C-alpha cells in the first residue's frame, strides 16, 4: 500500500515518457487551460505539493505572467500530517514546511503535483487546504496521470495521460530538484 505515496523497491529503467521540450509544452498548455477555466487570473492562486509540485507550480505561474502579464501567487503545501497511512508500522515520513503567503478564502486554488496515481495525496491535500481557509474552488493540475485511482478523484488539468501497470513507477525529474527535466517509466524489480 505504501506505493500510494512513495516507493522503496529496487527499480529498472523502461522508457522515457516525456523529454524537456515536451514537459515545457505540457506545462505551457496547462497554464493556458487554467487561465481559460478561471476566465482570467482574478482570484487565482497556485499551490505546489511537496516535492516536485512546487517547482512545477512556479513554472506555471511564470508562464501565466508571460502571456497574461499578471503575477499569480504560489504557495507550498506539505501533506505529511494528513496522510492516511501514518499508523502503518516501520515508516515515519519527514514533515516539511507548508507556506501559503496569501489568504485562501474566496480564491480559486490550483493544486499542482507531479503524478496523479491512487488519489491519496490529492485527498490529503484537499483536507490540508480546507483546514487553512475556505477557497471558492479547488482545481487539480498534474503533469502525469498514470491511472489506478483508489478514491473518487480526478485532475482538471493533465500534462500527459500514461496507462501504466501497478508494478511500474513513474519518475518525474525537474531541473530544480533533479538537475534535469524528464519523465521516466521504471519497473519495480521482484514486484
Amino acid at each position: 500500500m505504501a506505493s500510494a505515496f512513495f516507493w522503496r523497491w529496487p527499480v529498472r529503467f523502461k522508457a522515457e515518457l516525456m523529454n524537456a521540450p515536451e514537459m515545457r509544452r505540457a506545462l505551457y498548455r496547462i497554464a493556458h487551460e487554467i487561465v481559460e477555466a478561471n476566465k482570467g487570473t482574478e482570484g487565482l492562486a497556485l499551490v505546489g505539493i511537496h516535492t516536485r509540485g512546487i517547482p512545477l507550480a512556479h513554472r506555471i505561474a511564470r508562464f501565466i505572467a508571460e502571456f497574461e502579464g499578471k503575477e499569480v501567487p504560489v504557495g507550498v503545501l506539505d501533506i505529511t500530517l494528513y496522510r492516511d497511512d501514518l499508523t502503518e508500522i516501520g515508516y515515519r515520513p519527514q514533515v516539511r514546511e507548508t507556506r501559503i503567503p496569501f489568504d485562501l478564502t474566496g480564491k480559486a486554488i490550483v493544486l499542482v503535483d507531479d503524478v496523479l496515481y491512487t488519489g491519496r495525496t490529492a485527498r490529503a491535500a484537499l483536507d490540508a487546504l480546507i483546514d487553512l481557509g475556505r477557497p471558492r474552488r479547488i482545481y487539480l493540475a498534474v503533469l502525469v496521470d498514470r491511472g489506478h485511482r483508489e478514491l473518487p478523484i480526478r485532475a482538471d488539468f493533465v500534462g500527459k495521460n500514461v496507462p501504466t501497470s501497478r508494478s511500474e513507477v513513474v519518475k518525474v525529474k525537474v531541473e530544480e530538484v533533479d538537475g534535469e527535466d524528464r519523465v521516466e517509466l521504471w519497473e519495480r524489480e521482484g514486484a
Partner: protein
Amino acid sequence: MRHLLDFQGWSRTEVESLLDTARVMREVLERPIKKVPALQGFTVATVFFEPSTRTRISFELAARRMSADVVSFAAQTSSLQKGESYKDTLLTLEAMGVDAYVIRADSAGVPHQATRWVKGAVINGGDGRRAHPTQALLDAYTLLEALGTLEGKKVAIVGDILHSRVARSGAELLSLLGAQVFCAGPPSLLPQSLPGAHLTPRLEEALEEADAVMVLRLQKERMEAGLVHLEDYVARYQVTEKRLALAKPQAPLLHPGPMNRDVELEGTLADSARSLVNRQVQNGVAVRMAVLYHLLVGREKA
C-alpha cells in the same frame, strides 16, 4: 528512537531532525485551525506522579493538536509503596490501550524503569534531578530561533544547578548542538561535575560575552534546607540589568518558569524585550508535538 528519556544515544542529526519537525508544528499553531489529523487513533497518557500543571497542559495540548486521544493520571503515592504503584498504574493504562506515556516523577529513573514495564513509547516529563528532555528541546528550539545556530555560542545557565534537571538536560542537549555551556551558581548549589557544561561559582565568568542567558528558579526548599540564604543569593547571583551588561548586547533571556520575580531575576528584565519566556511556552507545545510525531509514527499500535 523508541523513547525520550534523556539525550544519551541521540545523535545530533536525530535532534536536528526533531527540531525541524518542531518548526513545522510551530506553523501549525499559527493557523486558524490549530490541529492536524496526524496522530488519529493513537492514545497518549500523561502520568504525573509529581504535580506540574504547566508541563502536563503543554503535553496534553500537543497531543490534542495532533488529534491523539488523551488520558490523564495524577497521583500522590505513599513513599513506601512507590515502586509498586508506579508499575501498577502503568500496567493498568497499558491494558486500556495507551500508545505513549508522558511520565513525571519526583524520583529519578522512573521513566527508564517504565520502558521495561510497558510496550508503548515513554517520554520523560521530568524525573527527580535527572532529566527534563522536552524542556531542553524547547529551550534549544527557542535559542535557535533567536540565534540562528548554537554552534560555538556561549550559553550561561544560572541558579540552582545541583538540583536542576533543566540544567542537566540543557547542558547535555545544548553541548550536543555545539554550544559552550557555562553553569554558574553558589558553591552549595553546584554539582561536582555536569556532562556538557563548564561549572563556575563566578556569575561574571558565565555571563561575560554570553550569547544567551538561562535563569533557573530558586526553590524555597533550598533556603529552608539552609543551602542558601535569600539575601546572599540575591546579592551575588540575581541576574540584573547591570550584570547582564556583561553578556553580548541583546543576548536573549530564558526562564523555564514559574518565575520568582526579584529573586533569581530582576523583575524588570522578566518583561523586557530580551525575555523569551512567552516564546518558550509557545514553542513547548510545538516541540512536544514533534516528539509525539517522532516516537509514535511508524510504531506498532497498542
